[in-house]
């Protein structure tokens, strides 16, 4: 998931060649791309809203005001609200650790951060069942102490945390590695306290990367289905998140309500896309600046 951050000011390699491509090649290609996007992305998205509003705004609002739907929305928001701060703390500390220090197990840590991307979400969920389930490793102990983890809200949050934790760490790490620690060193040398250096130098330098990670992390936290489905227990009004609620409503032939809840998730996706676009632009700027400043120093 460590996508290369697009460069804002860099010219597209081969840009000139693209312009020289004859029109009969260019236009069909553009047509195919847009046709594909329209068919597989825009149309389904439009269908979600069309279905949701098929019986009017009143029914749409009623579907969202249903206690079980409200509870699903609430749980989804709660999950994201807990997952995001923890991911920021974890992401910043691990990225900083990896970028600034050489230590035993560093390579292992980098690999482990990527693990949730490599594992199927269903397996992630099952891991928690194996750990915390009544027949699992520490399930009997938990039961003895009356602590419910899976098939309850903590399980949903844990599973979400597991599948989302690479996002912030990955984004911050690549930027930190690119920037190096010269500025921090300089700040400390000039007599800034550790505290001041962190808030004035370290954090501002990576703030766009953190935000970028957060927005991806949020989208995944709210949309996660597989892992959450395994640990949720599907108790209506209790442990269902929005994606699970959509499935239930759909299976109950309650299509309007299913698409109403789905439309909220779709809106979230659209907002995510826009914010992501803005952040990518800012982020490319940061990376570019970092590069230029290093060049300046070495020159």
């Amino acid at each position, binding site marked *: 998931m460590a996508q290369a951050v697009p460069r804002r000011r860099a010219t597209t390699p081969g840009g000139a060649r693209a312009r020289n491509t004859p029109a009969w090649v260019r236009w069909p290609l553009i047509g195919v791309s847009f046709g594909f996007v329209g068919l597989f992305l825009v149309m389904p998205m439009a269908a979600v809203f069309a279905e949701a509003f098929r019986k009017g705004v009143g029914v749409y609002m009623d579907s969202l005001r249903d206690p079980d739907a409200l509870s699903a929305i609430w749980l989804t928001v709660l999950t994201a609200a807990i997952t995001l701060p923890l991911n920021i*703390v974890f992401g910043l500390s691990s990225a900083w650790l990896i970028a600034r220090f050489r230590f035993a197990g560093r390579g292992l840590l980098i690999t482990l951060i990527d693990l949730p991307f490599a594992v199927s979400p269903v397996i992630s969920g099952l891991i928690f069942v194996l750990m915390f389930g009544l027949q699992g490793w520490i399930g009997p102990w938990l039961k003895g102490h009356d602590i419910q983890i899976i098939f309850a809200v903590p399980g949903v949050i844990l599973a979400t945390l597991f599948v989302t934790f690479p996002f912030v760490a990955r984004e911050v790490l690549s930027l930190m590695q690119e920037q190096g620690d010269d500025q921090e060193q300089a700040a400390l040398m000039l007599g800034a306290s*550790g505290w001041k250096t962190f808030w004035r130098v370290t954090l501002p330098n990576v703030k766009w990367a953190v935000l970028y990670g957060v927005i991806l992390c949020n989208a995944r936290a709210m949309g996660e289905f597989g892992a959450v489905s395994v640990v949720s227990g599907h108790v209506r009004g209790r442990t269902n998140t929005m994606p699970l609620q959509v499935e239930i409503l759909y299976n109950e032939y309650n299509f309007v309500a299913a698409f109403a809840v789905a439309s909220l998730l779709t809106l979230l996706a659209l907002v995510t896309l826009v914010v992501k676009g803005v952040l990518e632009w800012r982020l490319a700027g940061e990376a570019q600046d970092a590069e230029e400043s290093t060049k300046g120093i070495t020159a």
Partner: protein
Amino acid sequence: MLSRLTHTVARTLLGVSTLFVAGVTTLAPAQPVHADTELLNVSYDPTRELYQEFNKAFVAHWKASGGESVVVRQSHGGSGKQARAVIDGLEADVVTLALAADIDAIAKNARLLPDDWQSRLPDNSSPYTSTIVFVVRKGNPKGVKDWNDLVKPGISIITPNPKTSGGARWNYLAAWGYALRNNGNDEGKAREFVAALFKNVPVLDSGARGSTTTFAQRGLGDVLLSWENEAHLIQKEFGADKFDIVIPSVSILAEPPVAIVDKVVDKRGTRKIAEGYLKFLYSEQGQEIAARNFYRPRLASVATKYVGNFPSIPLFTIDEVFGGWKKAQATHFAEKGVFDQIYQPKSK
């Protein structure tokens, strides 16, 4: 030089996370707290509409007879999958599953209720019964009339996976029972018949509701093997002008059982309500709700009233033909059992 920064960063991050965890733990109990007693009914797939109606009636009934305010929570899914969740710690006060073997599994694997649970309530702990029928597309274009039409080449059958779905196991056993009857109780012939039937199954969903959606919504298959109640629900939801119900010459008496999960109710102090809840299923009002949702009622008076809903089909029981659920489960559906031997997933 960096060590000063290290300390600061470490302290800040630690501080932030401690504050955060403290905040969450204090705020967490503030999320919607219900003063009412909650009862969790873990059920199988097609009972969603039944328990939606029944729970409303029960809450009113319990209050009217001097009890506390109750909120009944529901969880639905394939019967085997739901049993697995209860075994893994889903805190069900009552389980209302598709077949006895799934509750047996909870008793055996998690010891949450005694082995003799099924004798604690009348009628094998099954307040309502059902059977397996066929749903076909309007006008029955493939002319499916009975079980033997299902093994013909070119017929596409939709049924859920017997490994995870209770309804699917009833489907399988109903077909097996039919084949036994028509082949002089020849087990080998029955096995061939069921193997041929499953050759015509293009996809196995994990629960009955998934299969219904596959058949009715996505338009796959010529025949859906379905619970009788689910078949009527399909007609109600999608319109009687789209689907016909075909009643086979013989089918199985499906007894979906209910039980209290002793360890859970004793821990949560909900035994009295849970008992009241299950008892209410046997009451006249409970039986009426079952009948209205196309589950065959046990109570004679209600059965007579709704006789029009339920065509009479010769029904055999699992005890008669298979020697009970424990045996049927071990022979047919256990790992490497008959089903595993005869069913090869189609590689496409």
